[in-house]
């Protein structure tokens, strides 16, 4: 016995939520791309198009630009006005399991040496309705990092596209329960997912190799073609580097938090002029090691969910998977 909901019912649930909550789903923009966006009344959400989306749901928990506080001077006094991270509640529809899985991965980081209320409040106020995958492409590698086409980690509800205009609804948490309460009907139909992507590399073997190969010329050789644009870091659901800057004038300004990228040439430039990571090979090495060595050591989980966005968007077809597959080959050679 399962619970199902039709597309029309799902869309009308979404419309009911619009007045009081931020509802996010994939939408087609004027230039023909698919984006996760906060829905307006006039938008038609494309619930099954998450794989083609150019952005990820990361930005609804960790925005690309966030005001931390505003300051206004009056003579010798200063008013400091804290920002409120998010007033309304938020519901995300139609993301992939690999994107939802990034949320529990990031939780310990934003609760580590500093309780980042900007992230935490958004997590508390958001319900994630994930769509289990009916298709995978050659860039997907969730299974190589412990994921799967219907991995429930980070999701409040898992929807399965039944292919006939309806979705099976599997409620996973209390938040999910209250969202879908009374909206579903019983059925005998159950959803299925696509085949699990073939395993592309063995994480243990890769992690062992990383321990001993810090100085391997592999890093430079594999990354000559990287131009250092950083798109991989921006559309990665788990990358989280940020830069805090002050903007404004003497009278009035804001302290803001913006996305930053470890792939940018000046990321580690010191005030002295020394740059410990001055080649792209060093920067790419750092990214891989952060995700597969350092983060697991600190927080006991990989900083990668195998979504494949990095390679999909990279103009020179680099990204995490090609690098790890190459490392896998190296471990097999020995």
């Amino acid at each position, binding site marked *: 016995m399962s619970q199902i909901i039709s597309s029309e019912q799902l869309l009308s649930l979404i419309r009911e939520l619009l007045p009081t909550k931020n509802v996010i789903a994939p939408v087609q*923009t004027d230039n023909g791309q698919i984006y996760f966006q906060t829905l307006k009344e006039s938008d038609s959400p494309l619930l099954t198009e998450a794989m083609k989306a150019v952005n990820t749901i990361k930005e609804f928990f960790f925005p690309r630009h966030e005001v931390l506080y505003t300051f206004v001077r009056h003579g010798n006094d200063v008013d400091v006005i804290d920002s409120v991270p998010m007033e309304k509640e938020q519901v995300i529809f139609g993301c992939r399991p690999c994107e939802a899985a990034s949320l529990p991965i990031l939780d310990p980081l934003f609760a580590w040496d500093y309780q980042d209320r900007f992230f935490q409040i958004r997590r508390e106020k958001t319900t994630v309705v994930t769509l289990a995958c009916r298709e995978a492409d*050659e860039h997907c590698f969730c299974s190589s990092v412990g994921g799967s086409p219907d991995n429930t980690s980070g999701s409040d509800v898992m929807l399965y596209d039944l292919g006939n205009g309806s979705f099976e609804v599997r409620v996973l948490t209390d938040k999910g329960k209250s969202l879908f309460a009374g909206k579903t009907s019983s059925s005998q139909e159950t959803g299925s997912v696509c085949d699990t992507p073939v395993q592309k590399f063995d994480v243990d073997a890769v992690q062992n190799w990383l321990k001993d190969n810090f100085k391997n010329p592999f890093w430079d050789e594999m990354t000559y073609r990287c131009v250092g644009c950083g798109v991989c870091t921006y559309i990665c659901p788990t990358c989280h580097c940020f830069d805090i800057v002050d*903007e404004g004038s003497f009278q009035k300004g804001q302290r803001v938090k913006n996305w930053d990228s470890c792939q940018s040439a000046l990321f580690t430039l010191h005030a002295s002029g020394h740059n410990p990571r001055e080649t792209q090979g060093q920067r790419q090495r750092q990214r891989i090691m952060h995700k597969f060595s350092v983060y697991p050591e600190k927080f006991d989980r990989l900083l990668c969910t195998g979504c494949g966005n990095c390679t999909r968007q990279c103009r020179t077809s680099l990204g995490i998977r090609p690098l790890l597959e190459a490392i896998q080959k190296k471990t097999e050679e020995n």
Partner: protein
Amino acid sequence: MEKQLRETAKKLLQEGTVQVVIGYGRVETGGIGAIFVTNPDNADNLVWNQECSQNLVTYLTRKEIRKLGKAAIVVKACDARAVVVLKNESQLENNDVVVIGVACPGILNHRGSGDPVLQARCETCTERLPKNVDFVIGDESVNLPPLSVEQRSRKGNYAKLAKLMAMTQEERFRFWKDEFSRCIRCYACRQSCPLCYCNQCVVDKNRPVRIDTSATLKGNFAWNILRAFHLAGRCIGCGACSEACPAGIELDLLNLTLSQVSELEFHHFSGQEPGTAPLIGTYSEGDKEDFIQ
């Protein structure tokens, strides 16, 4: 043509004329990407087809690549103009690089479903045999009869620009507001551009901050205006920026505006003639001033 390309590359490496050949190849994912051949035996990895979209000249100013030694580079007609501009701007000497030009029938767009179509920038390209190169692979049969300014304005990016300029000023502003609202300030445009080679871009300077680094409309307008203007009279129209932009912003139109002014107003065609002085670094007493009171 691939055979001739591979033989040329092999010979250059074997004779020690260059230490690396920068060209297109099949990368691990099966797609086309830049490859850096240092061993003559690997010269057969070089490919040439209508998917070879990237402008490889951007690698010539990257220090990781310069460390490899003297390079030979595979260029299409558009890319070859970038090399000329780099030489005109004293970033490269003639004997710093060996330029291998390949005759290009146009690059195809495969992204999305449906049949591949010619990229917008290729629709108005008629001189498809590279000029000012050291080796030429292919011949003039790839060239098309030149287009008049009027004919050109109805094709490719020129047509798109004409359509934009037919809108009212408010409509244009709204268009760019929409475009720049998607900008995430990843600087993929800057990184993939062969002519953005500053060691420290002005947007990276923070004492004082000249351009907000935030991905707000204010910062995004300022950044895109700045980059377009810094390319005035220099942009060679390779389209690498638009191609690299993950948000699909129509950067081509901004750069094309200035490149058109450069051609029509100043008869300056960037990258066509070695030894040409830069557009902004020079002036003429006859420059128009009908807009100056």
